[in-house]
């Protein structure tokens, strides 16, 4: 019996996926659930697992090749003698069209999923979800099978296990997965765009007092409202009036002014930098933006972002304030033309009309693509943003 492994469809709108890298080679023995290859979509990396114990009898695409969803990527055979048969059937299948029959066709016997089980089906699914390896686990189920409760027990004992002492010897690891993708995109960005940066201070004293006033009432709605959410809303309004900042250039050199003000937010996750997108920020209330931002951050941190969360964006906001950073030099998240970095808000002494006052100052760092946006317009955008922040109000929660 041979099983075809196809390009999965992660999300309804996905048409094709790129094979990131191969983790096995043709002719290699694999066990059920062993990772065969990775699929990259945006910066999400997914592993495709072997459905059965067997041999990788045929690999049909190489790494970095793009494959349409549901096309066969490789074939796993139970024994080497079936290799030829499965390949032949795959090749002839593409020419035939399946005839329509009135009755339900008798299911092909090749697809029977039988064999001795050491784990219950639901426990197996749970193990996959919790990323627990179950081989060798204590089994308390009927007929010596591992059960869901056995998996849960293993999961809780794993989280309680002490952290292993780090080895002193240096480990070599290949650059792969999301890290590799980030590396590629950063280099591509710097190599492609003419990046320049401007820095400015924004007075957010009134905004912060308004924020403190409303923080509790937002909390009562179950929303932890962050400064980032407030900034996104103000940013969106300002972007409306600066079409040059919403202008993007594509690979063919054509310019487009984006109308949907979708703002990407940089999120630091265990798997690296993720940049999910909040759509139509100019049409949302602070409450809505805060809620969506919280959800996206959670999803990003557990690796659950989908392609839906990565829509086309007009600009990125990267807030490093919580790290204590003031000014930065953010790298453009192509294809955007502007990216804004914000830093830690701190009280500074400011001269206003002959008097010295303590003001809440928000450091702003803007990088722009000089191919499209000149320094003047970039500065004007920043200035407008500062003015907006000066007079911004947070709408009260209804």
């Amino acid at each position, binding site marked *: 019996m041979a099983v075809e492994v196809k390009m999965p469809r992660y999300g309804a709108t996905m048409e094709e996926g790129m094979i990131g890298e191969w983790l096995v080679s043709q002719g290699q023995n694999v066990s059920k659930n062993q990772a065969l290859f990775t699929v990259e979509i945006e910066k999400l990396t997914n592993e495709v697992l072997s459905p059965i114990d067997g041999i990788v009898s045929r690999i049909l695409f190489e790494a970095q090749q793009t494959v349409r969803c549901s096309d066969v990527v490789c074939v796993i055979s139970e024994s080497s003698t079936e290799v030829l048969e499965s390949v032949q059937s795959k090749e002839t299948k593409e020419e035939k069209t399946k005839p329509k029959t009135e009755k339900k066709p*008798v*299911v092909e*016997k090749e697809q*029977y*999923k*039988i064999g001795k*089980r050491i784990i219950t089906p*639901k426990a197996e699914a749970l193990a996959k979800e919790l990323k627990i390896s179950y081989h060798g686990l204590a089994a308390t*189920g*009927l007929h010596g099978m591992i059960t869901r409760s056995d998996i849960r027990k293993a999961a809780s004992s794993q989280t309680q296990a002490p952290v292993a002492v780090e080895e002193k010897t240096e480990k070599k690891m290949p650059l792969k997965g999301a890290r590799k993708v980030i590396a590629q995109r950063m280099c591509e960005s710097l190599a492609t765009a003419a990046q320049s940066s401007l820095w400015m201070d924004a007075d957010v004293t009134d905004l912060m007092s308004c924020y403190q006033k409303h923080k509790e009432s937002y909390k009562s709605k179950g929303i932890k409202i962050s400064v980032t959410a407030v900034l996104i809303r103000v940013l969106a309004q300002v972007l409306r009036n600066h079409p040059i900042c919403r202008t993007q250039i594509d690979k063919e050199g054509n310019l487009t002014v984006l109308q949907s003000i979708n703002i990407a937010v940089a999120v630091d996750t265990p798997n690296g930098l993720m940049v999910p997108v909040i759509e139509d920020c100019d049409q949302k209330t602070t409450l809505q933006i805060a809620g969506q931002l919280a959800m996206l951050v959670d999803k990003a941190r557990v690796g659950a972002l989908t392609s839906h969360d990565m829509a086309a964006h007009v600009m990125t906001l990267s807030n490093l304030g919580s790290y204590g950073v003031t000014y930065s030099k953010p790298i453009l998240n192509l294809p955007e033309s502007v990216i804004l970095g914000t830093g830690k808000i701190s009280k500074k002494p400011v001269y206003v009309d002959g008097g010295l006052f303590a003001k809440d100052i928000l450091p702003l760092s803007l990088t722009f693509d000089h191919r499209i946006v000149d320094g003047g317009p970039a500065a004007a955008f920043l200035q407008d943003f500062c003015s907006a922040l000066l007079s911004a109000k947070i709408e009260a929660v209804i």
Partner: protein
Amino acid sequence: MARKLSFTKAINETLHQMMEIDDSIFIIGEDVAKMGGDFGVTQGIWHRWPERAVDTALSEQAIIGLSAMAGVCSLRPVAELMFADFAGVCYDQLVNNAAKLRFMYQGQAGAQMVVRAVTGSGIRCAYHHSQSIEPWFMNIPGLVIVAPSDPYEAKGLLASAIKDNNPVIFLEHKLLYNMKTEVPEELYELPLYKAHTVREGDDITIVATMAMVKMAIKTAEALQEEGVSVHIINPRTLFPLDKQAIIDSVSRTGRLVILQEGPKFMGAAAEISAMIAEDIFEYLAAPIKRVTSLDVPIAFSPCLEDYVNPKIEHALAACRETLAF
């Protein structure tokens, strides 16, 4: 002894042998005495014991009412319902009377009787003589429903049923009447309330009742050609059911197909499905499938009757879908 006996002759032999050793046993029903039964099952009994074989008027309520209370008075009646469908006429006596007498008498006595009912479809007798009646009684606490699938079982189960002190509805499927298997000459008992493993297997469990057991065996043989090993269980006693036997098997195979004659809605298969899904959902690798008749009365013309009952193609398709899930 390797002699073969038909289902009807096996029952006849049991009755003779039991009546020889226990004189509290008597038979009662329409045409059971002088004629020896409409299907010949009680032949010879009246000739040996005229006082213990009672022909009655067409009075199902009286037959069962008499039998239930005679059981309370420590006799052991074996009553006959010529066609199981007639249980509708005496439903009250079975369900409201017989089932509840031991409960009412706080265990001191009960309706210890056997009601032999000729059940099932396949002999072109149309809607009032072809039904599978077990669902009518399977949720009445106090009743016992026994359903043999071959002559060997018929003899052993009937002997146990007569000795049992609970009211037993003993279902004899018409299509099994001419079936012949090896039946030991001596009297023997097969235990009630215990399911029987017809065939051992690892990949899928089939639970089958009465005439469907044969179909289950044929299905298993066909699937064996495809490398699948099938575990077949015949409950033998439909109610109370040996749940544990089914749990043991399905928790191991992860797959269950139930073959049952009669309508699907609320049939025996429905209860087994619910029971298994409730208790061992974790172990199921595929949804439980029921292969049953269509939910219609049975018509007369052969093609009409045959159309609505399950065929081996249905059983095979159900198994294959379950295996590929």
